[in-house]
């Protein structure tokens, strides 16, 4: 796989009178052509600074940013402008020109690329069809819903056939349903145009739904990086783990823990074992009773990832054998509570 974006030792400092803050602290990252890469972090983690350094909206203090083989940090003025034509960007608050219609907003991007009015007409019509807004062509942004505004933003960002699309919290201002439809659209254009997408978000759901690989950022550093499924099934860094908790929220009430008679175990399933009938086998093989207290299965790129909290009731030794058996057949077992 060819790399599309290569970030080398990127540092971004913010100087104020009182102190120098490191927004991005020596980050190196490679993003491949055609993948959807998610950067997740809490606010202030530096993810936005990192993203904005990719198209040099913010000038890195040091380090290099290669996009499609060109070191953007060496470009100035007209050359940088030309490079930016091939890097689309969408924003949390859309940033459309309010005094211009949907058509004119998209045409603006094509004008920047010196297209003729005829070419603009054809291309804008094409783009409006692609984002499903053909009927809103002459509407002003104020007349559109949040989701529709973001669709205009996407059409504008894609106008000049960019190699890369940067998404700056693109769904954070949208309701869950609209978020889903925008994510579907991003997935579609990623597939159809082989477009490399880099998105930053603080929502685990977004990463889970559309990203191939991900990085977790904190205090300006990437603390964890890898395939989304691997990171989700085996989060290593505490920050990643705490993000996972937002997805797998499993707190059993105190009362339950006090009342239960058996051993409570938390079982982590990953593909492909998650598809096997491990629990049924355990209950048949060993002389224990099972009681499901809690559970959830998420599908990441069609691969299941699940957590199940099970109460095992029976003779101590037999329960232990059952746990050992489960441990062998699943990803991980934690004993939460012993009788």
């Amino acid at each position, binding site marked *: 796989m060819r790399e599309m974006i290569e970030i080398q030792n990127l540092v971004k400092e913010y100087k104020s009178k009182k102190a120098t803050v490191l927004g991005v602290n020596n980050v190196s990252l490679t993003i491949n052509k055609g993948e959807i890469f998610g950067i997740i972090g809490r606010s202030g983690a530096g993810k936005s600074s990192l993203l904005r350094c990719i198209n040099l909206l913010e000038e890195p203090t040091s380090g290099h940013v290669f996009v499609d083989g060109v070191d953007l940090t060496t470009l100035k003025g007209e050359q940088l402008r030309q490079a930016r*034509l091939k*890097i689309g960007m969408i924003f949390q608050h859309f940033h459309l*020109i*309010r005094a211009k219609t949907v058509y004119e907003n998209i045409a*603006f991007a094509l*004008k920047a690329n010196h297209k003729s009015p005829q070419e603009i007409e054809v291309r804008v019509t094409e783009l409006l069809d692609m984002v499903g807004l053909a009927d809103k062509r002459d509407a*002003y942004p*104020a007349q559109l819903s949040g989701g529709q505004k973001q669709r205009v933003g996407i059409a504008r960002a894609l106008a000049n056939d960019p190699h890369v699309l940067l998404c700056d919290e693109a769904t954070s201002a949208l309701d869950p349903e609209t978020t889903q439809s925008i994510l579907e659209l991003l997935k579609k254009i990623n597939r159809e145009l082989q477009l490399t997408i880099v998105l930053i978000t603080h929502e685990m759901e977004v990463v889970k739904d559309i990203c191939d690989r991900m990085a977790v950022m904190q205090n300006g550093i990437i603390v964890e990086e890898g395939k989304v499924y691997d990171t989700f099934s085996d989060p290593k860094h505490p920050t990643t783990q705490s993000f996972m908790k937002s997805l797998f929220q499993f707190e059993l009430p105190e009362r339950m823990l006090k009342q239960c008679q058996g051993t409570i175990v938390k079982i982590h399933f990953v593909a492909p074992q998650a598809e096997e009938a491990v629990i049924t086998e355990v209950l048949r093989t060993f002389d224990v009773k099972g009681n499901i207290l809690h559970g959830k299965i998420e599908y990441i790129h069609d691969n299941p990832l699940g957590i199940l909290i099970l109460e095992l009731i029976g003779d101590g030794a037999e329960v232990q054998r059952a746990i050992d058996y489960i441990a062998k057949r699943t990803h991980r077992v934690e004993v939460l509570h012993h009788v």
Partner: protein
Amino acid sequence: MFDFSSVIEILPDLNKSFFQTLYMVGISLAAAIVVGLPIGIVLFVTDRGLFLENVAVKNMLGFIVNMIRSIPFIILMVLLFPFTKMITGTTIGPTAASVSLSVAAIPFFARLVEQALREIDKGVIEAAVSIGATPWMIIKDVLLPEAKPGIIQGINITAISLVAYSAMAGIIGGGGIGDLAIRFGYNRYDDTIMFTTVVILICLVQLIQYGGDFIAKKVDKR
């Protein structure tokens, strides 16, 4: 007491003065727009963090603008006598008054334009930069359309201030309604003429305000 016949008598003078006022306000407003608008734009786009950041230009232009604005108009007029004479060949009459009115109006309007541009969401400008738009495109297709309601309000305020300033020009023989008010009202203690000119000025200002608000609302797409 209000003497209606003296108003009839003065009507030709009143008519002439009214058009002199419109003439002075018109010329200096045009100068303010033609010269002040670009200055206002330059003041904005050369500011820190913007796409044509240039501290030297920003500071120098800002200094000149502040300097002219800090001179009281009546003194500015006198100060500009040699300049006015150079351009128009005279220092009295509406055309001569238009010179100093223009000089006062240009920096005033430039600041109002800068203010209107500051109201624009920075994100929209940033989006245009990220698209790869040229500075000229950003000015023409983002800054001006987005700030249009604010700029129209600025023209409005400038026009109204110019009506007031043009009356001051009357003191040194600039012509116009202010000139009339001083000649009759101040020098001859003619309250009727004084009162009439004030009513005319009030009506003129109300009309400008109303018209400006109407247009500003019409172009506002927010």
